[in-house]
Every structure is written in C-alpha cells, then in structure tokens.
C-alpha cells in the first residue's frame, strides 16, 4: 500500500482500522501523522453520517409490493427532458429570456400603434375626380349597393385604397 492508497483507505467507511493501513502507518510517519490530525474530523463525519442515516430512515422508500409513488407521479412530469445547464449557459439563458420579453413588449407596442392608426376613423376620403364629395359612409364595403349603382371598377378600387392603405396622399 502506498501513501495515496492509504489516504483512500483512511477516508473509506470502515477502512480506518484495516490491517493493511496499520501496516502502512508502521513504516510511514507522514501518513501516521496525517491520520492523527484527521482523526477527530473522521470520527465526527462518521457520527454525522450515522445521524443523517437516521434522518433518512424516516423517509419512506417504495417497496416492491407498494404502488410505486414515483411511477404514479412520473406521467405528469414526463415532458421534455430537463437540461442541466452549466453556469455560463444559465446566464445566457437568462439573457435570452430578458431579450425575448423585450422583443415581445416592443412588438406588442408597435402592433397596438398600428391597430389604433388603422382603426382611427378618417374624417374624409380624399376626393376622386369622379366623386369629389365621397366620405367614409360611401365605402362600398360599408355601403355595398354603391357598386350596383353605376360605380365603375376603378373608383371602387380607389375607395378601397383610400380607406385601407396607410400613407396615402
């Protein structure tokens, strides 16, 4: 047993009293000293392990004959696989979330502005040469009988353009 293996043995549960380790201590003062320094900690950790094991004993473990709690719960959780991200990825994921929320917000504002611009009532349709006094009431969508009352196709199109295309003159 070399010093590296001795350290493994020293820190293994039930390994501290192994005959091989004792033999190693007899011819290695450094490891013997290390064991002495670490003895209170190793004993404390052993005690702590036993205490923690007692805590764990109180938590039910599904037995072979019980309805398994986990498989009962699993279908609800059986969605897309969770991704265990590294810290850097988590940070970039956060930035992505912030950016997507900002873009969604800006999109909503622009959409709302466009909708309000479209739905704002126009006081007058620009006059055409054929019908200089056309108003919004004369839109052939609102007032379809206009089409059948001798309104030519070009002017029908013009009323549509006038009503529904933003940025017209």
């Amino acid at each position, binding site marked *: 047993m070399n010093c590296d293996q001795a350290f493994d043995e020293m820190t293994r549960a039930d390994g501290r009293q192994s005959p091989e380790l004792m033999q190693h201590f007899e011819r290695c003062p450094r490891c013997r000293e290390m064991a002495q320094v670490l003895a209170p900690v190793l004993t404390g950790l052993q005690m*702590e392990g036993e205490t923690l094991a007692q805590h764990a004993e109180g938590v039910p473990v599904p037995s072979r004959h019980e309805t398994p709690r986990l498989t009962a719960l699993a279908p609800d959780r059986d969605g897309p*696989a969770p991704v265990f991200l590294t810290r850097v990825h988590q940070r970039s994921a956060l930035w992505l979330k912030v950016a997507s929320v900002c873009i969604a917000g800006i999109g909503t504002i622009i959409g709302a502005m466009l909708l309000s611009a479209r739905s704002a009532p126009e006081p007058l349709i620009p006059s055409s040469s054929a019908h200089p006094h056309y108003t919004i009431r004369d839109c052939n969508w609102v007032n379809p009988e206009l089409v059948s009352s001798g309104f030519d196709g070009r002017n029908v199109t013009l009323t549509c353009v006038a009503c529904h295309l933003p940025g017209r003159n």
Partner: protein
Amino acid sequence: MSHDERDLFLRIQRGETARFDELVRRYQPKFLRFAFSKLGNREAAVDAVQEAFLSAFAARDTYRSEYAVSTWMWTILINLCRRHGERAGRRQTETLDARHEPPARAGDTGGGLQKLLLEEQSEMLSRLMTELPEPQSDAIRLRFFGDLSYEEIAQTMQSSLSGAKKRVKLGLLALAERLRQHEE
C-alpha cells in the same frame, strides 16, 4: 454494480419503467444523507431528492450508456441541491437541529458523556462544513455520506482523480484546523 445499473437503466429506457423504483431504493438513502447535509433542512432535502428522481425519470431517454448511471444520477442531485440552496437562501449556520431530531434508535438508552461529546462534535462539524468552499464540502459529502469512490467523485464533479482527492484532503485538513481552534 456499474454494469448491473447500466443494464437496469437500459431496460428502463426500453419501457420497463417500473424498474426505476429499484434505482430509487438503491440511491435514496445516500441521496438523502447528502441532501440533508448540504441543505441543512429535512423538508428541503426530501424535496430535492424527490425532484432528482423525477427529473432522472423524465430525462431517462437522454442517458447515454457510455457514462455510469451513478455519475448521471449524482450530477442531477447536486445541481438540484444547488438550486434548492440558492432558492432558499442558504443559511450558513443551520444544521439538522432540534426541530428535526432523528427518531431514537431501538436500544438507545441515553448514551453517555462520550456519546454526547461526539454528537456535539459532529454537529459542530456539519456547521463548519458550510464554511468550506463548495467544491471541498461537496467532495467530502460525496465521499463520506454518498459512499462514492474517488473515481466517481471525479466524474461527478468533472475534475481529475487527483483533483477530487485534493478537494477531500484540503477540506478535511481545514475542518481539522477549525475544529482544533474551536476546542482551544
């Protein structure tokens, strides 16, 4: 053990999902010991362990057989414990205190002074452990409460074998020093 677990997991992946409970039975005690120690709170530890199993089950198709099942499972638990700890705002000095006294073992008849002293020392140790750098305290927990070999610790913590040993050694020496200072 490792091959056996790998085969078990491949069977789970092929649809024998009820076999996952076998893994739960194997890992739950170790997972709970680790999580109790790391989170210092029984409810949080039970939640983290439960969540780890559910996450592993939900992500079972992402497991690749070239890795050890134990490394995969422990990585999930450590990440979840870290997240639980951050969420709860880790309380540095909290230990498994009187509110969560472990159930008395059959045959316990009060112990003695020596037992009380050892218990006090172990409580002190768990408090001092929260003061260590996280890689050192996690490596110690994996070794002593998770019963992991140094190879498994290295794989789980994504370090070299010597790095894993160094973390445990430095952590133990720091604990020994702090314990000595406290006793003086």
